[in-house]
Structures are given as structure tokens and as C-alpha cells.
């Protein structure tokens, strides 16, 4: 199973919306049964980026890990969402 972590400030609001979008997308591509999705707070998981195949955040992450984290805000606004999905597919290796 591939793994993807989705974080926000609280782990309940915007990460939940982003998780729903990502799960819908993975289902539409037929990949959902090969991926476990998780969500939580950025504070709790930012030091465990390497534990997941893909790491997605709706909030700003520290500069030193920024290139390892996919910015999920376009999933909320719809502007640039395709690029986010491409990055996720790439990280998951599909």
C-alpha cells in the first residue's frame, strides 16, 4: 500500500476537505484501493515526512522541508488543482 499524509493547522478543517478531494481523485483514476490516506496536524507530523510516500499540506511548512511537501491549497480554491494531482501521482509512483 502507498501512503499519503494530509496536514493542516488543526487536522480537522481544511485537511479534511483536501483529503476528500484527493480520495475522489484517486478513485477516479482507479488507484484508491492502493493508497492509505491519513490526516493530522502539521505540528504532529512535520518531522515524519519520510514515513509517507506523499506529504501534503494546506498550511505553510518550514523552508527546509518545503520542497518535500505538496501545497494542497489549490485543491481548496480549484486554481491550479491539476498540478497538485500530478505531484501526488508522481510521489505515489503511479
Amino acid at each position, binding site marked *: 500500500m502507498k501512503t499519503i499524509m494530509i496536514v493542516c493547522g488543526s487536522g480537522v478543517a481544511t485537511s479534511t476537505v483536501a483529503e476528500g478531494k484527493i480520495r475522489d481523485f484517486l478513485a477516479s483514476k482507479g488507484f484508491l484501493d492502493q493508497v492509505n490516506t491519513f490526516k493530522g496536524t502539521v505540528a504532529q507530523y512535520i518531522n515524519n515526512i519520510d514515513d509517507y510516500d506523499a506529504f501534503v499540506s494546506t498550511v505553510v511548512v518550514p523552508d527546509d522541508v518545503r520542497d518535500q511537501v505538496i*501545497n494542497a491549497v489549490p485543491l481548496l480554491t480549484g486554481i491550479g488543482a491539476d498540478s497538485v494531482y500530478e505531484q501526488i501521482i508522481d510521489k505515489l509512483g503511479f
Partner: protein
Amino acid sequence: MLFDRNVILFDEQATDLESALSILADRLYQAGCVTETFKPAILAREAQFPTALKTQTIGVAIPHTDTDKVTVPQIAFMRLKRPVKFLQMGDNTEIQVKLIFMLALKESTDQLALLQSLMALFQNNQMLGYLQTVRDKDTFINIMKTAGIAH
């Protein structure tokens, strides 16, 4: 019911982000929806994790904080007379925000559907247009009902 008339504000004058958020948080407190700690928590949270979003047409913000500071679920709305500067969620770029939806929600499955409807609203330029011109609270509430955010 969400969008109590006392927490819907049109063309409010605010000089900056702090004053805009304080006005709305005070309204939620006066309406009995949140604890005294809600306002400082909202301000601290916005500073740490900005909540503005750039739509295709205007800047919006969805300030929120931990659910334990909410007693009765509510969403407060403010349209600013003149936009104020916020930072964008996710990348901290500056955004001029015109519409603020302050979320005072409890954890529940309802919250997900509501947030999804709110994000869909932000992608609907026609609805965002209505929100920039609406002048009475009943019409505003009807827009929110059409968007699936109020019932």
C-alpha cells in the same frame, strides 16, 4: 441556525486584519456562540496559520480555531468596505481580502460537507458576485441556502 442575523455584517470599515477579525469574533461572543478565549485564539491562529484564499475574482478568508472554544456552531460573515491585507493559506503571499467567513464549528461530519460547500462557493464567480453586492440579510441567507451552506 448558521448565519444568525447578528453575525452578518455588510461593508464594515476595518483598518487591518486584527480589527476585522476582532469585530467578527466580538459579534460571535455577544451572540453566545463562543467562549471568551475564542477571539485571542482566532488572532493567534491567523498569525501562525493564515487562512486567506485567492479566488478567481476576489480575496476571501476563513479564520477558525480549535473547536473547544465554540459553544454553539455558527458562521459569521463580513464584507469589508475596503479590502484589508491578509496572508494566503499555504504560501503566505499577500492577499487583499474582501469577504470573511469566520468559522465557529464543532467537530462533526456536518462540518466536512459544510466546508466542501464553502469551497465550491469560492469557485463560483456568479455567487461571489452576488456576495459583493447583496444588501439585505434575508437575501444573503438565501444565497447561503442555495450554496448548501445554510439550511
